[in-house]
Structures are given as C-alpha cells and as structure tokens.
C-alpha cells in the first residue's frame, strides 16, 4: 500500500527522523535487543554514552517496509544522525572502531572497546532464539 498518497506510518517515521538528532531503528529495544546486529549497534552508541532515540520495528511489519522504502536501505538496524542515514551494523561498527562515529555524534571517545561485548546491555541474541 506504499503507493497511497496518505501514508501515516511513513510520515510518522519521517517525523521521528526529523525530530531526533540521533535515532536508531532496531529489532527490540536497547535494553532488550532481539537481534545480534541491533544489539551491537545499540551497544556502540551506549559505549560512547551518546543519547539516542530508539524505535523497535518488530511490533508492526509495516514499520520496516516503510522505513526501508524511505531510506533505500534493506536491513535493520538503521542509524540516522541529523536526518541522514549513517548506516547499519557493519558501517556503525566500523565507524565506532575508527573513531568516526564519535565524531559524527559529537562526543568524546575515551578508548575504543570491542563492541562485540558492550559494557552495557545484554548479549547479542538472535530473534530465532526467543521464539518457541
């Protein structure tokens, strides 16, 4: 139904990206990520102590459809800074390790720690493991 001129979900997503300087669309929440890639991306932001808004895309499949249509990016997570797509897990992890992420976020990076095991937050976990 993405052809509809009135598209409340896409408008809500665009508004959220517009209103939040740093916003992460992810599976689950930063406290309880439902996918290892979302966990790692949220972990990088948490490791830098950067405040960020987080949107769980799992409750409604249309959120993901509309987000990907809007961003021209097929996978989750997706990190936006100042309205611009920064990347998914691979790019954010790479930028965290090189210090670029701290620059983009305008925060100080004390010392890069491996984001595979973030100091804050639960261990990466596949959503498959949570379904029974």
């Amino acid at each position, binding site marked *: 139904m993405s052809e509809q001129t009135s598209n409340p979900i896409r408008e809500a997503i665009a508004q959220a990206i517009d209103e939040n300087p740093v916003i992460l669309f992810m599976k689950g929440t930063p406290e309880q990520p439902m996918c290892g*890639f979302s966990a790692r991306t949220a972990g990088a932001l948490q490791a830098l102590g950067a405040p960020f808004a987080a949107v769980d895309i799992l409750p409604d499949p249309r959120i*993901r459809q509309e987000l990907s249509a809007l961003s021209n*990016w*097929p*996978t989750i997570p997706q990190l936006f800074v100042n309205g611009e797509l*920064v*990347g*998914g897990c*691979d*790019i954010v992890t790479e930028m965290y390790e090189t210090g670029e992420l701290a620059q983009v976020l305008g925060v100080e990076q004390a010392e890069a720690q491996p984001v595979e095991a973030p100091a804050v937050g639960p261990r990466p976990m596949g959503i498959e493991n949570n379904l029974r």
Partner: protein
Amino acid sequence: MPTAEDVKARIEASIPGATADVESPDNVHFNARVVAEAFAGLTRIEQHRLVYAAFAGELGGEIHALQLKTETP
C-alpha cells in the same frame, strides 16, 4: 537456500570487476568482503547499496543477514 558460493557469484555478477569472499555458517547468515574498483569515490553507504542491489528484496528474507565489508583494490 543460497550458499556462500551463490552469494559470491551474485555479487561478482552484479558489480563488474568485483572480488567477493563470502562465508556462511548456515546459508542464512552471510559474511562478505567485497573488493571492487567501482567503490572508488563512493561513501560506505553507497558502496553497501551497490552490493545490496544484487539481492533485491531477498535481504532480511531468505538471506537473513549479510555482513559486509567493502574495499577498493
């Protein structure tokens, strides 16, 4: 289900001159390192989009995850 070989072939067919090293433990999650002259001058986002273009609609579905590292030769 696609194998690592399938994913490698798809990437290399989609991006002329690209070399892809692809690993997969389960044929659902893939880890790819792609080296291509075509990446020169592109942002990381654009480089990844170029690779994603080889899998229209399949990423997040049959290919649950494609971990990607892109480089120029």
